[in-house]
């Protein structure tokens, strides 16, 4: 055997690593990094930043010409970290202000609300509550747009795509630029 010393060290290291890590793992896992920051969610967050550029909200939804675009996160999910990082980014003359939505009854002043997949089972009631509130609803789950959410993400061939329910946007009084509509898959479920 040529590499006797190396082999000794390696085996010792391997055993230590193999047996201590399971003990150390759960302790480390308590750390507050709940989700993997993966590219998929960073891309989705970047999309949401882009949406803000191509949406016209009702006149009265901003206090002044420079007041921020407020983005709310409903539920928890792997996108949260990437969305919160959008805080302070510029959109035209405004900045983005991203916060978690604690109470669904208190959504006044929000312009975009992202509904996490964790809220899947109560999507219908959430969207009913947000009806006519002048808010762009964005989701990341099947059937979101069919249930009258405005924009929904989906994956196609490993790339992020989005679909838009135009009728839902009309109901919310939110105007979507033709550029966005051109890139989207259109969902034509009527909403009223």
């Amino acid at each position, binding site marked *: 055997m040529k590499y006797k010393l190396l082999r000794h060290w390696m*085996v010792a290291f391997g055993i230590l690593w193999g047996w201590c890590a399971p003990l150390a793992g759960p302790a480390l896992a308590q750390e507050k990094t*709940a989700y*993997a920051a*993966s590219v998929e969610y960073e891309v989705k967050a970047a999309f949401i930043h882009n949406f803000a550029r*191509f949406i016209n909200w009702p006149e009265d939804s901003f206090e002044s010409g420079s007041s921020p675009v407020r983005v709310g996160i409903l539920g928890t999910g792997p996108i949260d970290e990437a969305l919160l990082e959008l805080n302070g980014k510029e959109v035209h003359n405004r900045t983005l202000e991203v916060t978690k939505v604690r109470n669904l009854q208190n959504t006044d002043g929000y312009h975009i609300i992202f509904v996490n997949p964790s809220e899947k089972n109560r999507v219908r009631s959430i969207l009913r509550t947000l009806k006519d509130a002048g808010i762009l609803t964005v989701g990341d789950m099947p059937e979101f747009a069919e249930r009258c959410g405005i924009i929904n993400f989906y994956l196609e061939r*490993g790339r992020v795509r989005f679909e838009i329910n135009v009728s839902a946007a009309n109901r919310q009084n939110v105007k979507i630029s033709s550029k966005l509509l051109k890139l989207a898959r259109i969902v034509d479920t009527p909403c009223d």
Partner: protein
Amino acid sequence: MKIKHTNIQWFLGGSLGVLALLFCGVCTAVGEPIRMAGKLPEDLTRLSLEQLMDIEVTSVSKKPEKATEASAAVFVITQEDIRRSGATHIPEVLRMVPGVEVARVDSNKWAVSIRGFNSLFARKLLVMIDGRSVYTGLFSGTFWDTQDTALEDVERIEVIRGPGATVWGVNAVNGVINIITKNAGNTQGGMISAGGGNVEQGFTTMRYGANMGDNAHYRVYGKWFNRDSFEDPNGVDSNDDWAAVRGGFRMDWDVSENNTVTFQGDVYDGESKGRRFGPVAPGVMAEILDEEDVNGGNFLARWTRKYSDQSEVKVQTYFTNESREGSLFSQEINIFDLDVQHRLPIGEAHDVVWGIDGRVMWDELESTFLLSFNPEQDTNYFVNGFIQDQITLIPNRLKFTLGTKLGYNSFSGWEVQPSGRLLWTPDDKQTVWASASRAVRTPSRLEDSYTLRFLSVPFNTIQAVGNTELKAENLLAYEMGYRVKATKNFFLDITTFFNVYNDLLTSEPVASPPFVTTTQASNLMKGESWGVEVASTWDVFDFWRVKAAFTWFELDLFLDPASQSPRSTLANGNSPQFQVNVRSYLDLPGGWELDTALNYVDELPDLGVEDYVRLDVRLGWHVSEQVELSVVGQNLLEPNHQEFDAFAGGINTALVPRSVYGKVTLRF
């Protein structure tokens, strides 16, 4: 005849190169779409919607996440791993997987196995490319010299250690290697890579992909290489140079929202040379300079009908033809396979998958004095059905999977292969799994019908013969694993296993004519193996990633008291006891990449192979989105080293040399 054949290869390879250059000129004139193949910019919010829509996200998040939720020992090799390894052939990439043994026998032969029993013809492994079995129907081993594709178009390689028998096909006793190429929609545009070095004397791959209408995409590729011969331990040329040319296509068509169809196929032609020593006629031993002509092709069609996220039907059929003409034997094997799978949820808690797979293999073998077959032509049938139910015991926390496979084959009749798996995910970051399963390796066409003469000198011939009465080798496997995403930057995967083998193959002496010693294949060996496999990924900084793998493997084989097999059948020491693989991917400013891989493989005492350390280094430079240059050095620590000994198979062992090559990759 042989010489002419080589000329054809050079001609085809050369024209491919010229075509590549022409192509390159034409395509740079066409527009330059934004390409995200390499690095992503740090701030994605600066990108336009169109650019965002072009970023591929599945391969980095969805699939590996899926793997971390599996109740089996799964390791995923990503395209990034393949590219940064600098490997030029599929088995070389597998060195990074814990529990996998990769040993290069000579320039074009590899011994690859999972959890022991390694040999040039390792037989307890299922290897697939895009759902098509590629291990040979002849002896259930894999001819690695004909398993290839454009490495740049491989999306990932999933390696599942342990019996994957319930869902996967037969032969998945110790593991499954599943090579998955990209959807044609994800390989749009052109790519040309070419390079050469001291061992890799020249290689080029070109691929072009485009769309056909709104919903269909295709790609075509061509590939050629020529590799130099190695030297044997005495410094003599091993006569094992290797050249091959191959081409293929893949088309993916979204017929409607819920129906997708895939067509793909390849053809190849190569010459794998070698040197072996063996009997050529009664009483005459000689060295044979072997020139194996290999060629073949395959065509596959797959239709997937999706009913919902949890429910779909998949129908797949393929045909393969492989032919090999050499001095040891010649074969032409045809396989037709039809596979139907249906996945459906039953109630809230049951996720059921069932399927049926039928296969016909017809072959024509040509005997030599060294290796002969009786009969030389045969047709064999295999039918397999499986059903698996994944039961959710506690939503998002506890799942139990129960499945079984029931199969019929022409060699050993009916076989049952049940398995049970428990998956516990206490939170989003941790997975604990345990399983018990049975798997069989059915006797192969070769074991059924061969006569192999190892030695023939005047008044003495030693031969081994097959046995039509063989039982399937079988395994009871108990596995347990733990995975944790300990922090945002550290992922760890640990697997332990205990395997009990029964009815393993031995060679038993039988009555034979004077001056001949004959042994016959029989099932008189048992065995136990256990081991620990650890894999980890550590993102030290966002520009530096370190991946490591550690393997500890023990095997004990015992002969049945009735066995008179020679002790040498006990190949306890054909596998390394310890293996370590550490890889570092370092991104430097200016588009530079520095990648290093350090690999320790323990000695193989029964084969007299010493332990070795190999160091591979790759320096890459993304000159622009379109151009990538790289220099790769392999086995840098020593002029050469030995990785295996296949003398028992009559094959000359060559030393793996130090090698360096340069490569240019253009995308347009």
